[in-house]
């Protein structure tokens, strides 16, 4: 089921919603869909919409609260641990958590390499952007938590 989006100019929409993208390289990397969101995408899950709510997926042992602490606990179950910053570290995967002015979690992004991050933009597209700050905005707030885990080796 494709989510019906009432816009025609993706590029203009991106720059209006995320003004910081004017200053950094970015590109759209998927079709739009409402089947997964940024948290699912950070967890590499494209089958479910993750959110601590009655209609979202959330680990059963955690409360339905959109606090940073609760998101950290959810990602600790995926072997992530808090870390100091978003710098690239060989051998580690990193994700970041964004918090709005109301103190509640609004967004997550995942690091792909030293110069590239990826975000699922709500009910819309996946994009790649150069830094976590690229998608800081009124809707997503600012980066408030960094997490990392060792890269899985086959």
């Amino acid at each position, binding site marked *: 089921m494709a989510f019906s989006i009432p816009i025609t100019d993706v590029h203009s929409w991106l720059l209006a919603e995320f003004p910081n993208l004017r200053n950094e390289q970015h590109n759209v990397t998927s079709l739009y869909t409402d089947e997964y969101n940024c948290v699912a995408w950070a967890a590499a899950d494209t089958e479910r919409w993750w959110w601590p709510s009655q209609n979202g997926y959330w680990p059963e042992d955690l409360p339905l609260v959109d606090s940073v602490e609760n998101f950290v606990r959810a990602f600790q179950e995926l072997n992530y641990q808090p870390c100091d910053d978003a710098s690239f570290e060989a051998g580690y995967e990193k994700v970041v958590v964004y918090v709005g002015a109301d103190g*509640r979690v609004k967004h997550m992004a995942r690091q792909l390499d030293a110069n590239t991050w990826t975000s699922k933009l709500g*009910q819309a597209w996946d994009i790649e952007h150069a830094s976590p700050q690229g998608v800081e905005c009124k809707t997503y707030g600012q980066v408030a938590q960094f997490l990392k885990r060792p890269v899985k080796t086959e």
Partner: protein
Amino acid sequence: MVEENTLEENTSEENQPEEFAPRQSASESATLEREFNRLAEQWRRETMSMSSSTDIAMHPAYYQIIGMGRVALPWILRELQQGGGHWFLALGAISRQNPVNPQDRGKVRKMTEAWLQWGRENGLLDSNN
């Protein structure tokens, strides 16, 4: 005897299928549907970048649609069928039902199918769709 009749009537009422679509005049319904369409379009446009289910459901247009009550159920189901979207909280709040298997929470396709099936079973969606 009187008590038995009363009991039979009450039991009979309880067994009636719940009516989800209130009766309205055609002009009242058309006016409300136009308002629903305006609110739904506003909600889609203003929440499409949001990942927070909390924020998506707290949008003022979404609240107003919930406030329309049961008359909005066929329109919400039509929106869900034709354009997707996270209408689940509104459907649950209005109908006080939840046809979604708990194991399917977050699986948007399965949640959508469960609600569309519920709509067909309750005469709110054409069973051919």
